[in-house]
């Protein structure tokens, strides 16, 4: 047998070992994100948003901010919302959050704040700061007694918040329950004015559907089942029942909740829309439904004030849009449905970030009237600022008319108010029950009312457990 030649492995040189070790160490440290929260550069801020349509407007504002202060702002968007939340959670664990976050006001701001990720701004945000805002939204982002009590319930997402803390400053306001209609098609079907009652709306749908049998329908992103419920049925039911009886629909009282005669009547009225859904609505995502309208496959889409930006972004001419709130039924408790604006998104400052002073300055800068109006015009989203007597002049005709249509009265419908719903209430699951009624037509109004009441009762039971 011949000799087996064993070769001694080649040794690494000292320099090679040193370089290798340094590389490994750098990699590990980089993976652990040891850099701390926010930007490392004192003249630079980082900001994250979950709204792609806000990026351009924020970047223009950032240029102005840099000119005034010398501090640059880098804006990054992560979409959709769920991916954004996951990104924030992962970055929080690696200590790698930006300086400023755009958040859902009175929602994710409290969740992040309660978990200790955000700075409590209650001492920083003065009355002078919020002076340009609408009085009804100026305090949003602040933990009220009601939000605090909700946070104490089992399964609450906002554990850790304290009454009086403020975790965000309003950045955009608006509401749900706004119908966007194709103005040209409406005119062709003989309509130039928005409907004032639910029945007129149904008549309008019928007329447009007859004129445009292929694409005259109404759509909404029901792949997220809460949309049908929260953006359509709820404002309609509020108009039908009024501010006192409407919240009872979500109670355990069998004589007043969805299973009651009032609840079933509301469902039956809402069911009148069933023949007019664009085919496939039951399975369309929100963006798909908006695109269906933008591409002319539907003549109506229901969304929120924020929908306008998406439609414009996707090439739909804003001048060809007629907007109106979901109208109340003819003999309902309300003569017209005023939609109360509330803060949809807010700006939060990350806790223990390196550039807190600059971050606060940036958030405050965005609240300035001229900056907010410039942002609104570019992003086609409403700012929390008071737009004065003539909002069309301040932010353009379409956005201005939408702002003008929002109501401030006591009886205006507040889509963001969840005080009458149990803790742990899941709009998606409740919306899925409604979807069985319309558009799917697999249950009638009575069965749906009972199923809704049963599910909502289970949330009440869960919240007491």
């Amino acid at each position, binding site marked *: 047998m011949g000799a087996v030649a064993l070769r001694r492995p080649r040794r690494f040189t000292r320099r090679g070992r040193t370089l290798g070790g340094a590389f490994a160490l750098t990699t590990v440290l980089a993976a652990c994100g040891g850099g701390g929260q926010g930007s490392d550069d004192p003249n630079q801020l980082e900001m994250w948003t979950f709204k792609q349509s806000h990026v351009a407007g924020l970047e223009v504002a950032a240029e102005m901010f840099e000119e005034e202060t010398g501090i640059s702002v880098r804006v990054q968007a992560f979409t959709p919302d769920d991916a954004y*939340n996951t990104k924030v959670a992962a970055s929080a664990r690696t200590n790698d959050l930006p300086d400023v976050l755009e958040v859902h006001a009175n929602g994710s701001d409290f969740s992040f704040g309660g978990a200790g990720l955000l700075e409590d701004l209650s001492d920083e945000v003065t009355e002078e700061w919020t002076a340009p805002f609408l009085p009804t939204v100026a305090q949003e982002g602040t933990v009220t007694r009601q939000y605090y009590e909700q946070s104490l319930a089992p399964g609450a997402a906002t554990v850790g918040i304290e009454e009086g803390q403020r975790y965000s400053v309003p950045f955009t306001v608006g509401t749900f329950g706004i119908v966007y209609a194709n103005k040209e098609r409406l005119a062709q079907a003989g309509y130039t004015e928005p409907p004032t009652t639910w029945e007129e709306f149904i008549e309008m749908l019928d007329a447009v559907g007859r004129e445009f049998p292929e694409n005259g329908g109404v759509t909404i992103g*029901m792949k997220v089942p809460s949309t049908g419920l929260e953006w359509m049925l709820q404002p309609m039911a509020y108009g039908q029942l009024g501010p006192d009886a409407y919240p009872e629909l979500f109670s355990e009282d069998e004589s007043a909740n969805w299973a009651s005669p009032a609840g079933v009547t509301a469902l039956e009225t809402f069911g009148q829309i069933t023949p007019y859904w664009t085919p496939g609505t039951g399975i369309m995502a929100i963006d798909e439904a908006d695109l269906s309208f933008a591409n002319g496959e539907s003549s109506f889409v229901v969304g929120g004030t924020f929908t306008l930006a998406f439609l414009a972004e996707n090439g739909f001419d804003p001048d060809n849009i007629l907007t109106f709130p979901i109208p109340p039924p003819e003999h309902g408790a309300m003569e017209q449905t005023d939609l109360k604006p509330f803060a949809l998104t807010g700006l939060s400052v990350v806790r223990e970030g390196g550039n807190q002073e600059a971050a606060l300055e940036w958030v405050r800068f965005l609240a300035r009237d001229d900056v907010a109006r410039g942002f609104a015009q570019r992003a086609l989203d409403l700012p929390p600022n008071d737009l004065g007597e003539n909002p069309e002049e301040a932010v353009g005709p379409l956005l201005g008319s939408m702002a003008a249509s929002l109501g401030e009265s006591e009886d205006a419908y507040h889509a963001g108010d969840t005080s009458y719903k149990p803790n742990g209430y899941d709009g998606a699951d409740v919306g899925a029950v409604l979807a069985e009624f319309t558009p799917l037509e697999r249950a009638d109004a009575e069965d749906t009312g009972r199923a809704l009441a049963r599910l909502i009762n289970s949330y009440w039971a869960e919240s007491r457990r």
Partner: protein
Amino acid sequence: MSGETIASDARRPSEPGPSAGGGPRGTRRRPAAPERAERASRRARLREAAWGYAFVGPALVLFGVMGVYTIVYGFLLSFAEWNGFWPQWNWVGLDNYADLLWRSPVHAPAVREAGVNTLWVMIAVPLLTVAISFPLAVILNSARRMSGLLRSVYFLPYVTTGIAVYFAWQYILEPNGAINLLLRSVGLGSLEQPQGFLGNPDTALPTMIVVMVWSSVPVAMLLYLTGLQALDNSLLEAAQLDGAGWWRTQLSVVWPLLRPITAVIVLLNLRDSLQGFQVFLIMTNGGPGNSTNVLGLETYRLAFLSELAPTLGLASALGWLLFLAALVVAIVNQRALRRVG
């Protein structure tokens, strides 16, 4: 010392002499040659082993971090309440499991509904996959012309399956999609689905099953084809000599011989049906209503689509329940495999 020297030292016959360092007066003496050779050999072995560990080390660390750590982390999480942000977990013992299985009026019904849908998928997907892929493999195996091309064509769904294909299916199945158009154009308008095949709760789950079967047939067919080509021809010839026709040969000889492959295909598809959720997430998100919600998707919803509610522990618990179910399926399948083997 070169490698050659080590090797030659190791082969040298042992020489007589005192043991290392053991002189009569304790004087230090040079170790004898065989001893030196043995040491050198041991050093070489150690060095070789060290290099081996160095190469395996990163993979072990990676497995430790990505595998063991996450498994243990996930298991512990299933006994806690957490939303991904809280600084600390809230330990709840077995509550998550109880809530999912029977106790919670919110979660238990949703899990039950998803469980029923999953069961349908678990029954239909393996059965249909076998029912389609076996005959297809037999036909392809007997094709004399263009068999390579045909195999490639039938294997195409596997290499193209992914998010883009699921989106493509979505477009094909929508109200104005290709399938409705095709049905209309061939005079089968009564079979059209005005809401699209995914928009109607009665057709949504069966349609999803068809899409899953479409994705799983190529691999199953390839496995059957491999089995068919490994069959001993003498068995088939013997059957034919005994007078068995083509059908009889396929059913009584080929099918029983390929039973182990069938068992593997069934197991793979059961596992995919039990744990898969991507196709449901992309194409229906569990809708319309909850008609296509399956357990895998419910787990994902609890983990990532619950509006920051502290349901990560519930998601983890459901994941472990799915793991247990998969384990039971695997054991049953292994027993069956042994029996047929």
